Structures are given as C-alpha cells and as structure tokens.
C-alpha cells in the first residue's frame, strides 16, 4: 500500500519527534556511564560530562571487591523472580474472578480493594502484623505484604474484561470450566498485559528498599538497593566525626554511578524479552492457531 503525502509527513514528523525524545533520554545515562568509568579526581572536580576522563574501572573495582555486591545481586535476583511469580499468580487469582460477570459481589470486592489503595495503616502497624506472622527477617516479609498491587490487579482485570466474549463462548462449547477458560483462553490472549504487569512487579521488587531495610535484619540477605544506598549515604554522615578512613578512596559520585549501572543493566537486559509481547499484537495468532 502506498502512503499518501499526508501519511508521509505524519511518519516523518513522528520519527523526528521520537528521535528527539530518545536523545533527551539517553544523555543522562551517558553521563552516568561516563562518571562510572572516570578517575576519582576527574569525578570529584566535576569535569566529566558525556565521555569518561582518566578512564578507569576503579569505581567498579571498589564496588565489586570492596563490598558484597555480588551476594546482594543474587539476593535481588531471588527476591525479584520469586516475588514476581508469586505476585502474578495471586494477581491473576484476584483479577480473573472479578472480571467474570457472574461472580458474586464483584462490586463490593473491587470497592473494598480500591479502599485499601487510599487508606493504609502505615509502617508500624504493618510491621506488627508481619512480626506476628513470624515473617521478620525472611523474604516472606518482602513478598507477602505487597503481594497484590491493587493498581496492577485492576489493570489486569480490565484487560480480561476486554477480551471478546465470543472466544470463551467457543471454549464453553468445547467443555471448558472456569479454570480451563482462564488457562486456555484468557491468559494466552492477555500476554501483553501479563508481560507489562510482570515488568511492573519485577521493577518494584528489584528496587525495593524500605521494606528490605525494615524487615530484614540479617545483612547477608540485603538486596542491592539497600547495600548501595547505605554505602552512598553513609559517606556523607557528618555526625560520626570521630573515626576516619572509612571509604576514603571512593568518590560517592563514582560509586553511585557504577551502582546505577549495575542496578539498571539487568532491567535493560530483561526488557527486550518482555518487549516482544507488546510490540505487536498476539491476539490474532493465538486464536487462529
């Protein structure tokens, strides 16, 4: 099909605008990369912009040898993978019944859930609940209290509701029960939304900070966010004047940048895997197949 002149203009403008946006977004990242690969002196004196000066891996080196970052990296992976799987599972278990028109009291349940998005008990009451369940100092304390994000659940429910009714009608005729419809029709057809929400949950778990810090007492179980935050922030505490030499060789900016890279690379690596689900629609293929 040939494009009309109007369409050509549209596509051209679209490309230009998107390129412009993309460039504005990539600058800060280049800056961070450059900082992480520059010498401490150059970083401290603020000469680094988009290209490393006095190229050195020292920030990464001190990050990897001077701190238990690998251990916390694996903790982060563990927290994220299991947490995401659990959250997705229960979110589906919440969203699917609520998306069914014949489900009892779906209005009441939805309202009750939205209510908890707005009212929450705060840090200490939640901690007491977690403590009474014996979850303190276990990853259960990270997974369970935040198991279902009502926001994500509503998005999923809305995606389920938008599926065409004809499809499940057909499944019914084939003799599928509710679980059958869910597993064979609804989930495969909702892959873009599932991928998106898995990403949202995953990013949330990957970046979790406050919950880890509050609930986990065993520092060997810390994830990367807590480790890195703690390291950066405590270099700038002034109260502790009595003792010197801690971390004197690192520049906070350099370490911070290196840590940002280490934090962000896994997310960027996973992204293309999920991306394929929302780059093009999957619906047609799965129904016809």
């Amino acid at each position: 099909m040939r494009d009309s002149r109007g369409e050509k203009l549209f596509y051209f403008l679209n490309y230009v605008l998107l390129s412009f946006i993309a460039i504005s977004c990539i600058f800060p990242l280049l800056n961070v990369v450059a900082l992480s690969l520059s010498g401490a002196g150059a970083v401290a004196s603020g000469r680094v912009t988009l290209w490393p000066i006095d190229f050195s891996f020292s920030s990464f080196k001190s990050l990897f040898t001077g701190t238990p970052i690998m251990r916390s990296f694996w903790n982060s992976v563990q927290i994220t993978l299991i947490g995401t799987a659990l959250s997705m599972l229960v979110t589906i278990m919440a969203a699917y019944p609520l998306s069914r028109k014949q489900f009892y009291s779906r209005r009441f349940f939805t309202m009750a859930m939205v209510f908890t998005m707005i009212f929450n008990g705060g840090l200490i009451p939640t901690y007491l609940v977690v403590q009474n369940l014996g979850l303190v100092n276990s990853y259960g304390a990270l997974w369970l209290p935040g198991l279902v994000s009502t926001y994500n659940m509503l998005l999923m429910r809305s995606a389920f509701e938008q599926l065409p009714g004809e499809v499940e009608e057909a499944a019914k005729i084939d003799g599928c029960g509710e679980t059958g419809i869910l597993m064979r029709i609804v989930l495969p057809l909702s892959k873009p939304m599932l991928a998106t929400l898995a990403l949202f949950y995953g990013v949330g778990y990957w970046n979790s900070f406050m919950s880890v810090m509050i609930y986990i007492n065993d520092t060997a179980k810390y994830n990367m966010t807590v480790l890195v935050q703690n390291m950066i922030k405590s270099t700038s505490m002034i109260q502790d004047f009595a003792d010197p030499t801690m971390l004197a060789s690192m520049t906070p900016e350099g370490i911070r940048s290196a840590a940002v890279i280490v934090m962000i690379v896994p997310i960027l690596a996973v992204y293309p895997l999920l991306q394929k689900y929302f780059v093009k629609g999957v619906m047609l293929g799965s129904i016809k197949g």
Partner: protein
Amino acid sequence: MSMLSRLPKLLLISGLVGSMLAGCSNNNPAAGSENATDSGKRASISSTIYDRGAVPNGMGTIEDNMWTKWINENGPANVKFVAIPRWESQSKLNVLLASGSAPDLIFEFGTSIRNQLFDQKQLMPLDDLIEQHSVEYKALMEKYPQLKQAGIKSDGKLYEVGRMNEVYPLVSVFIREDWLQNLGLDVPTTEEEFLAVAKAFTEQDPDGNGVDDTYGVGGFEFGDNSGLFRYIFNANWVNLDENGEIQVGPERLKKEAEFKRALFEAGVVDKDFLSDKDGSKSKQDFLNGKIGIYAFMTNDFLSFASRELDTLMKNVPESRLKVIPLPKTSAGQFNPVWNNPVQMTAVVNARAKEPEAIIKYIDFLVKPEIARTFRYGIEGEHYKLEEDGKPVILDQEKYKNEVSWASDFTMLYSRLEEGKYGYVENQFDEEVPAQKEALRLFRESIDAYMNDLPVGEGLTHSEHMPQLPKELQVKFSNVTAAVHDIYTRAIIGGSNYTVEQAALDAEKQWETGGGPEIISWYEEWWSKEKDNVLIWSDFYEIYQQQQAELKAD
C-alpha cells in the same frame, strides 16, 4: 495450542515458592539459641551495630565477622549483633522498639533519636547499675565528670554513655594564599575586607588565566561552606547573651542575611547557589581552583587530606591554602564550630534482661587496649607498637580489608586515653605530600580557632541541645523553615525584597508561629538546667586540659 501443558510448570513454581517460604520462616526463631550452648554462665546480650555496606567481600557481614567473633571470645558476655542501616537508623530503631524486638544496647550518634527514645520511655536508667557493676566507665566518669553531666536526662537520671573526643575545629575556612599574593592583598580580618577580597578574587582574574571564571567565595545554601556565614555572625536561634542569659529568636539572622546579600550583589558567589543541592558544584569549583574562600568540614583531616586536598593539589598544583580566622563583624568575632568533646553514643533498652552483663560489656568496650583493636587491629598481626607507643600499621592492604570498616565498634573509645598517639596531630604520615600539607593546615586551624572567642554556633554544640516537647518542636521546625525562606528571598530579592522587610516578616512569622511559647520553654529550661548543660566555655576548658596532658606526655 494448549495452555494446559503449562499448568504443571506453574504448580511446580508455586510449590517451590511454598517450600522456600517455609524455609525462610524457619530461620527466625533460631536466633536466640545459637549462643546459649557456649557456656552455662556467660550472659547473652544483644547490641546494635551500624551497617554502612562497607564490609569487603569475603569478610562476612557487619553482624557476623572476625571482630564479632573476637568480641564473643574475649568479651565478658555473648553478644548478638543487630545491624542498623546507618542512613535509616531512625526508622529501623523505631520498628524494632515498637515491636519489642530492639537489642539491649543501642548505639546511636543522633541526639534527637536518643532523646525521642527517652520520651517514649524506652531507656533504662544506669546510675545504680554503673555504681554497682562498672569499673572502667565509672573511673572514666570520675575522671571526666562531664560524661555524667551530658548523660543525664530531664528526670535527673543517667541514661546515656559515651566517649571523650579531642576538641578541635570541625570547620576550617581556607583562602587561596597564592591568589592573595598574585593580587597583592592581605588576609581579610573584617567583614568589609572579606567582601573586598572576595570581590577582587572574582573580578581581578586571580589565577591569571585571562578568563573571568572565578568566584570569591563558595555557595551559601548547602554543603560544607553553608555554615560559614552563620559562624561569622553567630546567627543562631538559641544563644547565650553577655549576661549569661538565654536568648531565643530570629534576631541574629538579620546581619548574616545583610552580609550574604552584599556578597550576592557584588557577584562574588555563584548565582545558582540555591540549586546546588548538596554543595557539590561549589566544592568542585573550589577543587578546580575557581573559588578563593571556602569552608570545609574538617572533622577528619586525614580523609580531607586523601580526598579534597589531594584532588586540589593535583588539579591546581600552584594552589596554596591558608586557614584564616573568621572576620570581625558588627556582631562581634567568633570561632567556627568545634568537635563535641563529650559525645553520647549509647543507651540501654528498658526491656534489657541482663543489665549487669551490659554494663560489663560497656566496660569492655571502654578499655583503651580493647577499643584500640577495632581501630588498629590485632597487635602483631595488623599493627605494631613502636618503642614510644606509636602504633604502626604493618600491611596497609590487609588493614584496609580486615580492619578499616570496624570502626563502629569503637563508639565508646575515648582515644585520648591512649596518650599522645591518640591525638589527631600525631596521625599524619608526613611521607605523603597531601598529608604533610594537611598537617600544616591542621596546625593553622588550631592556631586560628582554638581560643577563647565565643563559638558562632549559638548556645552549645547541637548534640547538647535539649529536645523541645513534640508540639513545640513542630512549631519550631516550621517557623525556622519559614524564616529561612524569608531571608533567602531577601538575599537574592534585589529591590523587590529588602533585608529590612524580611526582618519584619521574620519577626511576624516568629510571633505567630509559636515564638513566645518557644522562648518561655527555653527560658524555663535554662533557669533549671544551666548548671548541668555543657556549653562552649566548658569545651574550651576541656580543650586546655587536653592540651596540657599532651604537653605533659
């Protein structure tokens, strides 16, 4: 296409998850039982330890490592450590205490956090315990009655233990001596001269590079330099007047704002000082040789040497720094803030089961020969003592890997009890050029600031200030923030908003924002407590005492 084929996988995952959950929660109750088997008689206590994420790979964790093992082998009790993230210590302590699971011994630098624990009735009074069970700390308290004075709370009982620190300037003001020479100027001694020199530094191309790229002075709002003008004018909210009476309110802030405004209008400061959130831009400018006068936090001259000074010497080899006394002003002449010599660092949880063992453990940590271990390591392995008692690190690499991160175990270590090698002056390694330079600057800073001029930090070191009652504290926080904003607008406001107007607005804000109540609270407190509160003149006495001991040594 069959979705059902994926079902087993899903089940497998959830089963796995289930077993992991169980695995994790099983770990919980084990905590207490580990130590119990060690010996029948040894008491078991628990203690916090700051976590700074600084334990190197392979050295274990901050709560379980060679030093915690060493403590458990050599100390008087079995100690279980609970890591407290340094940066978020308040929230972590809050949940631990609220849930009744806080450790027995709580180390915390933050005075307001300790005060809050006292308000919440979470602390155990220690007078009798120390009287009955302590040897070391009791002796230290007899030697330094100030330790006792500082540890007493408003009900007259002792709740806090701490350490004695060396008194030295916490902030030093550096000027580029080479710039002064280039322009043929003298060290400024009054506020007028300060302004004139800063102006010359800005306009007369002091570095001779032909480009107008220098500032007279560092940023006003954030970072190391931000306190400078407050110290110059003693522009604080709570002060001691000439008659020894307490004076509370925003009155003293006006002169500081006027001076800042004069500097700002003269163009000697970066116009963007307000957006330089952590002062890093200003600091970078100084380290790149673009700023003439800059105040640094020199709480730790050694790390100042290895970071800032070293960077400056490499970036700008021709630079030469000089420490200058604060200029005389119409408000008087002052010193920048000093180190707090009587630093409270630990409290005991009211619910602690074995207070006697805790006191014994405190005693253990107070002993110089024990505390030294966490600073230098094991004698013969990490350091050796030279004949005159000077500790020398044997292997820097090993020291860095095994000892350098352990210093939070020394929160009860009064270093000066070590004699002369506990003093900062004797810590420098003159072989290293930056440290040699730092030693020179340290001595200049002592000469410039350790004298009987008042310190421009109000009544006393912030760690010795009392905690206002909750509601007044809210008002005070709000009104100080509002007044701060008012004066900042006056600094950059030009003809739209003058300092005079700001002073009126500030006064109004103070009156309506709870000022009178706050004043009367402080006045009442002062009339009751003035004999117990340690103030700057006390610290000066301690300084003189310390120096006398150093000379005698």
